[in-house]
């Protein structure tokens, strides 16, 4: 009943006449999705170590450095003996309560191998440190890409799809190549304007790495 009247009520409106209203409204909407919490709240400096073995790429070690506020939040909760550093037992609790849940967010690491998405489902060797009030996480993503004579491409895009955290490449040494002798490797960091996340509002940055067997 209401909807019928409502439609009639709309019908009386000349489209032209509501344009200014729509412009204002879309401006507002473009200013933000309607969650009640503004984002982001956690800031992460991201570093990638691309690890090679005899055949090609064997894995990606991801290192995160957190902002001091989130660091403090984790320290308050998990540095139970309050000594300012994390013991293995404390790291184990962090892994369980403040890391493993990130599996549902692909560990904030989105990978494409020669154009095909590689979903990060498992990670290994998690570690966390606390030093001078700064928290770090690091973990290894096993990801094997055999090198060939033709060029292969690895794209790694670190971001939090929920935009609760802002993940950015670190200003210093964002990408490190490990044991890459025997391969021709080239890499750069660029904004990917083809893709976006968080309601299409943010373009991610990505590392684009190309490699092949050295001649």
């Amino acid at each position, binding site marked *: 009943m209401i909807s019928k009247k409502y439609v009639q009520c709309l019908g009386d409106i000349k489209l032209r006449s509501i344009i200014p209203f729509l412009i204002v409204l879309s401006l507002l909407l473009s*200013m933000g999705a*309607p969650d009640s919490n503004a984002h982001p709240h956690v800031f992460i400096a991201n570093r990638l170590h691309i690890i090679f073995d005899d055949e090609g790429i064997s894995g990606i070690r991801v290192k995160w450095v957190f902002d001091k506020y989130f660091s403090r939040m984790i320290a308050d909760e998990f540095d139970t003996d309050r000594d300012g550093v994390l013991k293995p037992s404390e790291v184990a609790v962090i892994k369980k309560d403040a890391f493993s849940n990130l599996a549902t967010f692909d560990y904030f690491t989105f990978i494409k191998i020669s154009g095909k998405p590689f979903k990060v489902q498992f990670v290994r060797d998690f570690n966390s440190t606390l030093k001078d009030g700064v928290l770090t996480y690091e973990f290894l993503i096993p990801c094997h890409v055999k090198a060939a004579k033709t060029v292969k491409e690895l794209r790694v895009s670190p971001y939090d799809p929920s935009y609760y955290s*802002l993940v950015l490449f670190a200003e210093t040494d964002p990408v490190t190549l490990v044991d890459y002798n025997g391969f021709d490797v080239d890499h750069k960091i660029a904004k990917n304007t083809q893709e976006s996340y968080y309601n299409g509002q943010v373009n991610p940055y990505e590392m684009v790495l190309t490699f092949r067997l050295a001649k």
Partner: protein
Amino acid sequence: MMKRKIACIGLILLLLLASASGALAQNPFFSKKKSSPQPAPSRLVPPHPIFIKLAVWQKQLKDTMAGLIEQARNERRPGPILYLLLLAFCYGVLHAAGPGHGKVVATSFMLSQKRSLAGGLLLGNGVAIAHGISGIILVLAVHFILKSGLIGPLQTVTRTTQYISYSLITLLGTALVIKCFFKWRSASRGNRKPGEDTAAGSGTRMLAVAIAIGIIPCPGVVMVMLFAMSMNLIGLGIALGFCIAAGMAVTITLVVILAMYGKGLTLKVLARDSRLAKRIELGIEATAGLLVAALGGLLLVGTVYT
């Protein structure tokens, strides 16, 4: 005529969709989420570098603030503290300019009301202050009463207040639409009762709506307060919380007033035909009411499934 109707409805649906996705506000490090979120396919609102810029500025401000808070712990001079409070205010302004903070809901509600500057000011400031104070109370309550870690209570309180807030918003929107319908019916019957259009909701009503929208604790305030309090700077933490809330109030109020102005402009353009203007006004109010209801419903559903 029919085409126009369809176009209208289509546009409104598009806007609703554009605003609907991404309705999640839980910390990914702790909240148990059922399904993996994928990068949103929605391209209705093109990505804009300003989002990253806003976020990066916030990071720089927060880093500077962290340094100053540590400094304040060591040497209690008023100079750096005043500068710190000013930075907190600026952080609030930027923080609320990013996605969220009930701006869309508050704005939609304002569009459904008779225009009133006082009402807009009350609503915008009310939402921000409620959002900030809720965060301050949460941190203090956990610190002094529960004496526990913050993460658990923060998750619980956020979730509970989300349920409350989104339910109230849904009800509010529904009430607005129904009211609009009755107004439309009485207007079309021509029995306009003078004095029926009360000038914008009363102060207490506006405040109640502001609290309903802003009740969810602001994580920005929570994190900064927690940081200060972990250094035993409780007074400074509270002061910082209020400064951030004051900054957010500026931004949210500005957005609300801007939308009111937009509505006014639309009506002014059409004022030549007062009957038509009246109907358009009703149309805007009904759309805004529907938007409030839909936003509340979508946020509620989003919370249930998170």
